[in-house]
């Protein structure tokens, strides 16, 4: 038999496509063993057949494999579904078991923190109000101290004036328009200085001012103006004068007048 004819007869294709009976298959195999050309042609046909098959490959759904391996009682390493589930569950449980402790601890810390914050805030507000109270008290005391100190200073300076030698004290008594009014002139004849104690004079209105007059040879001489307000502790230093027979105080327009308004004379005192 011609080998080329044999190869071209289609029998190799029939062999590869599994069309032949076992007898015919054995014959093809023996021909292939005898003739290298047949063997080569058979191998080439098989390669083509397999390449053709491979060209049409379509990936089978993975559940075919799972089912197949389950049915065969084999382990499917690429798809260990059940194993993963069995293992994954405890891991999940572990995570679920541990997480609440952390969150509970965190919550507890947060709650303690909030409580402490509120407590310290109230403490702080308390301290703050007490401090401002103390500051106010302190300021009040300081003011009172200043008042007392001023008074003490004034008394001290008053005392200085009064202790000097050659002092003539003249009491000015209230006239008809102010019977209760009273003033004292401390006149140092040596130095000619004149100090006025107006502690018992009524307060003057804002637009008017008291004016002290000295009567010298029957005529009034301006000794300066003053206001009566507050405690009037300090002695008011007036203008100096060498000779005088009397002192008087009238209420004049603010700034004083050249001549006294006689109807508005409050107090007068003879020397």
């Amino acid at each position, binding site marked *: 038999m011609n080998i080329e004819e044999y*190869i*071209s*007869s*289609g*029998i*190799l*294709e*029939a062999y*590869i*496509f*599994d*069309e032949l009976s076992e007898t015919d*298959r054995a014959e093809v*195999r023996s021909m292939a063993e005898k003739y290298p050309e047949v063997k080569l042609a058979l191998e*080439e*046909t*098989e*390669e*083509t*057949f*397999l*390449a*053709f*098959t*491979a*060209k*049409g*490959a*379509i*990936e*089978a*759904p993975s*559940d*075919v*494999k799972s*089912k*197949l*391996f389950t*049915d*065969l009682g*084999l382990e*499917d*390493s*690429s798809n260990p579904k059940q194993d993963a589930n069995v293992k994954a569950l405890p891991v999940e449980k572990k995570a679920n078991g541990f997480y609440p402790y952390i969150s509970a601890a965190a919550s507890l810390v947060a709650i303690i923190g909030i409580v402490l914050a509120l407590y310290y805030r109230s403490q702080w507000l308390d301290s703050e109000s007490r401090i401002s109270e103390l500051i106010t008290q302190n300021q009040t005391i300081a003011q009172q101290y200043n008042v007392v100190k001023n008074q003490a200073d004034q008394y001290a300076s008053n005392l200085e004036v009064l202790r000097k030698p050659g002092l003539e004290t003249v009491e000015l008594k209230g006239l008809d328009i102010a019977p209760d009014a009273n003033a004292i002139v401390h006149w140092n004849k040596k130095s000619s200085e004149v100090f006025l104690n107006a502690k018992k004079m009524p307060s003057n209105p804002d637009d008017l001012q008291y004016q002290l007059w000295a009567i010298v040879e029957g005529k009034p001489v301006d000794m300066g103006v003053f206001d009566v307000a507050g405690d009037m502790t300090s002695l008011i230093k007036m203008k100096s004068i060498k000779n005088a027979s009397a002192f008087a105080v009238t209420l004049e327009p603010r700034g004083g007048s050249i001549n006294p308004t006689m109807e508005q004379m409050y107090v007068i005192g003879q020397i």
Partner: protein
Amino acid sequence: MEYLYDNYSGALYGVILRIVKTEEVAQEVLHDVFIKAWNQISSYNSEKGRLYTWLVNISRNASIDKIRSKEIKKTYKTDSVADNVYVIDHANFDTQSIDGIGLEKVLAQLPEDLRFVIEQMYFKGYTQSEIADEFNIPLGTVKTRARSAMKTLRGLLL
């Protein structure tokens, strides 16, 4: 077994799906083929051919048996691979259409008469003499066409 499955299931599924045409049936056949292969692996004789070829032919025979069984026969009567292509392309559009098209593209490059013989042999499971009888083609012509179809395919594929 896993090696066999991972290496050959794609090729075998492609063969089966082209023959039985529906994924559901194809998956069933693929499953049965591997069960059969597993059970008959001891009867496989490496001297008689390659394992791969053996598996492909088990798949082809199982698929052809399936479509020739009465229940399937009644439902599916389409005969040409072109129809199969349509089904496959749509059934596997998302994942495997490129591979599917690959094979059909190769087939489309064959002359009509050669393609017909290969389709009948490969996908219908007809023997060469069955094709000759069925389609009134001289047996010698069928044989020559089978031979040159495989040669042309070899040129296209290898």
